[in-house]
């Protein structure tokens, strides 16, 4: 994958669309997990949520920068 991509004629770092995409996925995942009551079994929901986001964001990032 390239480090920069062009969207609607604007050149931007690929990280930006990845960030937006992982944010969307995170929001959906968060809703599913809170409805399933997973947060009741987690020690620190905020930390868990952040960690999930870090995973979601960094996996595609690692693929780019490999």
């Amino acid at each position, binding site marked *: 994958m390239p480090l920069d991509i062009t969207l609607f004629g604007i050149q931007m770092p690929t990280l930006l669309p990845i960030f937006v995409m992982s944010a969307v996925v995170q929001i959906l995942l*968060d*809703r599913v997990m*809170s*409805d399933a*009551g997973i*947060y*009741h079994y*987690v020690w*620190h*929901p*905020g*930390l*868990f*949520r*952040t960690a999930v986001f870090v995973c979601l964001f960094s996996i595609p990032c690692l693929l780019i920068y490999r």
Partner: protein
Amino acid sequence: MQAANILISSLKRFPWQLALRQWLTIDAPVLIYMAKVIIAALLALWIAMTLNMPDPRTAIFTVFIVMHPQSGLVFSKSYYRILGTIAGVGISLVITGMFSQDPVWFIAFFALWIGLTTAAGFKYRNFQFYGFVLAGYTLCIVSLPVIETPLDVFDIAVSRFSEVLIGIMCATLVSDIVFPRRLLDSLIASEQERFRNVLSTLSDPQSVFGTFDDTNPAVSRFSSGVVGLNAVRVNSSFESGSDRKERHYYGHLNHEYMNLSTTYHSLKSIIAAIKEGEKSEVICALERLYDPIASVLKTLPDTLLHPEDLDTVIRKLSEVKKTLEEHFEFDKERLREVMYVEWEDEFTSAGYLIGRLLHELHHHCATYLSLLNHRLSGNSSFELSRTVRFSTHTDNVLVALAALRGIGVLLVTMLFWILTAWPYATLTITMAVVIGLLLGTLPSPLDGVKDFFKGGVVALIIAAVYDFYLIPAYTSDLLTLGILLSPTLALIGWMTTRPKLAIFTFGFVFMFMTQCSLDPYYKIEPTKFLESSLAALIGIVFGGLAYVLVNFWSCSLTQQRVSKILRTQIVRLCNGVLNVERSALESTGRDLVQQFSTQGRLNMRSSRLVFEWLLSTLEIGRSILAIRRSLKRLYARYYPESIDIALESIKEYFEAPSSSGREQLLGTLQESLQVLRVTQMPSEKAQFKRVQSVIVELALIRTVLLNSQTFPVVTEDSCH
């Protein structure tokens, strides 16, 4: 394990145990919050500077704007700040791209955008308002500095957006990870307190049958907090581990509470009227009717509520419900023998309201019980059938006034800019627009502007110390800058926890962040500092002037507006659609009154008057809907003509109220009630119930109208 026990027991013996506990509950959260603010702000500063952002102060400023002790508020405000920034940055690109060379069109579209965002903001509540207003003034921040070099607008737009995003991410991350405090927990605490308050108020017959008195806090509290708790519920939805079902319960509880409170206050005012008429037999009969409810509630313990206790109460309440109607009919027959003056309408209405109170209380307890069960075990037997919406109503006059103020401020400061040709006047415009838009929802905006000004001046002094002494003398890198900044950041954090200092802090943060040298490299000059400070202070004065000039809002005008809006509501219910829910009626009314009592400068007495009007409107409106629904399903042969006449005359009266019209309406209502009471009742059970409900509702309308001396014909001026 043993060590922990020893620690606890030694803590118990600790002489300052109470003091320690108090410190942990009151002072420690403030200290933690201050630490969180410092961490988030320095993190934002560090990231923004490392990424070589042109203006790192926007990032650190954003942290202070969105930071709150509870993480739900941080998420909610951040969300709307992002949306507002996107809209504002987008429109800046468009307007600067299209009109930067044409001052007339530029200013015209600028003003249009400010007007639109202010108007839209006023239609919404909570942080949505902030999002819209931010979209308005972001245009000032982005497009005004580059008006001479319009090609730079893209850079400044991108950097502004990135800086805001950095600030928001730091604030949300820190507030959700470092000792998070959840909004939902405070919601639970307030709901518990409110529920206990309801039970203790209703368990005392004196609070229903006693005279109205302002000193009893339980009575006056029995209506407050509806709008506020709804806001808390909405904002808590962004928190981690937020439970949608639980929030759903809170929504239902809030609506049931509104219904209960309306019924309670209506019942109380009718009983007061009966007492005034010295009909002690009627009061005795009503007291007998109410006694079983009070005695059931008295069995509940004062301490923490257990689901088992509540379950017993609910069962007992349903038993009372079964016997209430028999008691009512029995008392009615007995009263018929002893009473010679007019009593039947009042007794019917009050008896009906007691029944309704019982029904609503039963429902409220059941919902609360299922919330308790849901929280304890995660499942509940009681399923909520539908979602309830909290509807709002904003008066268009208020909206127009705010938009007018925003546009006026913009145009006047633009004129100032053009006439003086001062390069720093763009800062004046920005400041004036921010003040003119953001402080508009405060109860007293002018005092807010004064506080903001004071905060600004104090911040300027501190910023000057930083700019010309501390930063050049002691900072060599980011670490030393962070260490130097920390005391001030901590001070701001402490000030944000004091509600009295809210606007002062806002002014302080605004000025400190714009004037303190937080650039990637040091570039402060004394003339620039003085000129930009002066420009900002002039902007605050312009913003304040707007509140002085565009302010023809007064107490009596507010009363007239409220009265008119409530009247239109009743007229609309007389001939509008039938599928209006009671929850919508209640929440709209309460939101309206809340808005007018913060914006419309009402004093204590007139606020109470307005609340009475709201109650009358809610009762009459609900009754009209109930009558129309019953009539729709009534067979033609039982359909009395007189009801149509009665409904029509209610509508006419509320369209154009007058004292003679009131007498006429009361006469018409009495006539149709008499006609209904003497006609043969249908033998079929469903039809019988419908006719009976029409009679009860008509009697209720008549009693409410008889009691309300000030609505809809405003007879006295309570503003002086």
